[in-house]
Structure formats: C-alpha cells, structure tokens
C-alpha cells in the first residue's frame, strides 16, 4: 500500500528560483490530487481544524505527503541552507529531545506510507534509514546526536517536503523553539524564534476580533500524541518560488508588480498549505508542518476547471484586508479578471474535495 500512485514520476531537475528560470510544472495527476482549500464560493478565514486521518485519494492519504516534486524540493532546501546559513534552520539548544521526536515521526510516517521508497529498520536504539529516492542508507543510534552528521531535525527535514516549526509548551502557550523553513511566506524565522502563539500570530488581521486565536490555542494545548489534526491554508504568489522569506523580499517582491490580466494565468500561483499538527510523545512539543503546494492559475484551468472557477469566486469576494495581509493586494484584480474568463457561473459542490460530495477538480 502506498499513498501515491505507482505511476508517479519524480521530476529531479525542477527549480524554484529565478536563476534556475523557475523550471517547474505539475502533471495533470499532480494537480488533481492537491488538497484544494476552498470548500465554498465565499472564503472566510478560520482555523478549520479537523482530525488528521487518511481521506480521499490525494494528498490527504499519507501522514506526511510527498509528491512528484519530492526530489527537486529536497535539492532546493539543500541549496537554500547553503546560500543563507543560520537563516532558514534554527533550533534552540533545549529542543534536542523534540528533534528526535520529529525525526521518528517523519521517518515512521514515510516508512509506513511509502514503503517502496523509504525503509526504517529499528533494532532497539540502533536504527537504519533507507531513502531510495535520495540514495541515502544510514545507520545511527536513536537519541545519540554524535551518530548523525547534523542535528536530527535538520537531518530528517532535509529529506522531507514542507517546512517544520516545532513549538514547546510553556506557561499555557506555545513557543517557537526550532524551525526548518526554506519555504517561508513573508516571515522571518530568526525574528520569530522564541515568540509565543499570540506573538507570532500578531500580524494576522481580524483573527483576534473573532476569538479564533484563543480557541485554537486551547484546542492545540489539549492535543495528545497519536491524534494529529490538520488544517489547510492558502495564499497567492508570483512564479513557482518556494522561498519568499522577509529576508529576501527585495528579490521577489518586484515580481508582484509584473502581473497583468493577460499574464496572470502563467505568473500567478495558488500556494496551498497543508498543515498536519502533531503532539510529540517525549518532549511534549507540538510540530507545526507546512506542506506547500504550488499550482499556476493556468494549470488549474487546464487540469481542474471546477477548482479554477471556485478560486475565481473566492478571490472575487475576498476581504481586501486579507488580500493585503496575504501580500497580493497589487495583483488581486488582475488574477480575478484572468480567472473570470474561465468561470461560466455553473453551481459548484460545497465542501473540501476529500469529503464525500465535496468539490472535485472537474473536467475528466
């Protein structure tokens, strides 16, 4: 049993950078398995947490999803870490136990969900890890950092898709203690390190007014190991660029001014974030992974026409303050206009695609 189709071809030469000319594309199957985040024509910001149990036939089958971009994305992470050391990966010294927790969680999940690609063999604390997609076969002693070439968290997350922020529980809140964040959406890990839940959510508009943050924090503090929860979130971005940190804003923000109603289909990408949160068993920390998927508006129209219509309607009715917060205020109108030519107004199903009767990609 595997959580991705046997036919999946892993593309090994994609890039997520202008220097690499953004050589990136989704296959039709890759688009139609996305965790599409718009259940309704109107978008409302919410925590929308649900139990993280396998659902549907796409990205929500595995504990931690991988897809056709796995190999390229791992290479991108390695490149980002090399180019800006100390900026994308930070772990405070007391987080070592949580690091081992996270390594175990990721490797066990991959081993269980993608056995043709990953094998974790445990003999007491002597572990062997085989990652056939990246050509890795290492043996190490669980709990002994000397037996790995780097921090356990860095070692595991260099072989994982998505970013990972580890939060420790302290004084009835959650505090950022470690992060592997080569795919940040306009925030700084160095800056946010050590912040509490309310502090790092500070810039999100509206949420406090709605009482969402307090409720979400209370919910997360009740989380137990073995009972993960998930939510999906989204934004828009220009070009298939994963690394959009505050630090490199001067490099990528000018792209926002290049979008027109004519080129939005190719330039504008829907950035979907799948966030499966887990309580970690030894450290009692919580890991907040952000698995990011990029799909251009044109790819949606071609491979998932009903989802493209839904995106058109959700963006049309979007609160402008949210567009500003998410950073696409400048090209919001262009994206809506481009999409309007691909929406016939037909009624669409309600609900996430992974639930029964939820919105499906459409087409055939």
């Amino acid at each position, binding site marked *: 049993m595997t959580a991705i189709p046997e036919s999946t071809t892993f593309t090994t030469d994609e890039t997520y950078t202008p220097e690499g000319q953004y050589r990136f594309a989704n296959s039709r199957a890759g688009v139609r398995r996305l965790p599409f985040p718009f259940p309704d024509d109107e978008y409302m910001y919410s925590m929308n947490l649900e139990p993280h149990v396998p659902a549907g036939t796409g990205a929500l089958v595995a504990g931690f999803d991988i897809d056709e971009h796995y190999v390229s994305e791992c290479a991108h992470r390695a490149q980002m870490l090399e180019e800006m050391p100390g900026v994308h990966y930070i772990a405070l010294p007391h987080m070592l136990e949580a690091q081992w927790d996270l390594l175990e969680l990721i490797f066990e999940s991959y081993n269980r969900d993608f056995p043709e690609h990953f094998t974790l063999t445990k003999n007491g604390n002597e572990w062997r890890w085989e990652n056939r997609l990246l050509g890795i076969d290492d043996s190490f002693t669980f709990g002994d950092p000397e037996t790995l070439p780097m921090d356990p968290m860095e070692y595991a997350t260099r072989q994982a898709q998505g970013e990972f922020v580890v939060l420790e529980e302290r004084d009835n809140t959650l505090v950022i203690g470690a992060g592997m964040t080569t795919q940040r959406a306009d925030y700084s890990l160095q800056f946010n390190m050590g912040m509490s839940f309310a*502090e790092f959510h*500070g810039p999100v508009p509206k949420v406090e007014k709605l009482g969402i943050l307090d409720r979400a924090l209370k919910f997360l503090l009740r989380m137990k190991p073995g009972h993960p929860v998930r939510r999906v979130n989204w934004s828009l971005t220009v070009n298939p660029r994963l690394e959009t940190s*505050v630090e490199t804003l001067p490099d990528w923000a000018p792209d926002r001014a290049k979008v027109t109603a004519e080129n939005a289909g190719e330039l504008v990408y829907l950035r979907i974030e799948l966030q499966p949160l887990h309580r970690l068993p030894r450290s009692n920390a919580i890991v907040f992974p952000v698995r990011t998927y990029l799909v251009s508006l044109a790819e949606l129209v071609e491979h998932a026409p009903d989802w493209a219509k839904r995106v058109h309607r959700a963006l049309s009715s979007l609160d402008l303050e949210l567009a500003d917060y998410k950073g696409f205020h400048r090209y919001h109108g262009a994206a809506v206009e481009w999409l309007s030519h691909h929406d016939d107004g037909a009624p669409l199903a309600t609900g996430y695609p992974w639930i029964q009767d939820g919105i499906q990609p459409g087409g055939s």
Partner: protein
Amino acid sequence: MLITGIKSRPVYDRLIPMAKGLTHVAAGQGSGGEPLIRLLGEMNPEQLAATSVLYSSESFTGRNYLAELQGFGVGDLLVFESNGDAVSGLDSFLAGAKMGTRLYLSGSEGFIGTSMQVATAYGMNRDEVLREHAGSFVRRVWCAHCSHYSENVTRRVFRCPGCERNLVVRDHYSGRLAAFQGVKADGEVPGELPDDEELDT
C-alpha cells in the same frame, strides 16, 4: 504591507522590590532613572544594601537622574556613558551573580530588550525580572535584509545605515532580537514608498 496593532510588543511591569531576592540588580537608562528612584525608595535598608545599581546617562529625551540615585545608600552604583556599555556592565555583573538574584530594568524599549537578551543568556526566568518602560517609545529596528540594528528610530520609513535601503518599520517585535522588524519599504516598485508617519514615540 503595513500591519497595525502590536501584539508582540512586550507588556511591561511596574518595578517593586521582589521580597524573595537575596541580591538585587537594578539597571536603568535615561528616563528609566525615575522608576529606579521609586523602586529604591520602596526598599528596606537591608534590600538597599544588597542592591547594585547600573545607570546609563545616555538618553533620547535628555533626562538624567544620576544625582538622585547617588542619594541612596545602595551597595554599589555603577555609572555608564552609553547604553551599550551599561548592557556590557550588566553582562559582567550577571556572570558573577548567585542564585537568588533579582533583576530590575527600566528605560527605553531598546535598552530593556538588549538587557533581557543578556538576562536570558544567563538563564534568568521571567519571574526573576521586572521591566518598566520609561521615556520615549523610540524603537530599535532590525533590518531583515542586512541584519543591521538601528537605535532610536522615530519614523515609519527610514534609511538603513547598513544597506542603504529605505525600510518600513513593521509593528512586529522580536524579544530574541530585541527589535522591531524593518523591511524594504519600496520592495514592489522602486521609489513607491508607503506613507511616512511619526511612530508612537
């Protein structure tokens, strides 16, 4: 681009003598002298004798409380010409501090924040430190692009001395960096700057 409502800004305390402290360190800067004087006035003779005061006369508003501070019979009074020197002095002091030490900080946000970095490095817990803001709310700003720290920033938009970019100060504060976040102000279109304004100084 600009984000209002500063939920990450520290919530400050009022300095009062911490009864369980065996030794006390009170570090202040400029206008922060006023809360120190009030604090010392509330201490009993035993606490005063076990207290070291570190005071920097550097001030954005020009207030100096050194003469009044000299009127208390504290165990030790160390005077510094700059806030940076006072923070270094605090570092040296805490290097030799024992269990039961209590820390009191007062002054600008930048001074309190950088002093807290030192206290945190020595493993002091939040319940062993009191912080009282005094004087102007000028900001210490970290440039996200070149990591330069600018002290006493008063305007929403300013030029970073480190990388020469125009930065907009976001209303987002990092205790770890003891600074607000500055990001390129005309990131999307060169020369298209957001509205400048006086910060809440």
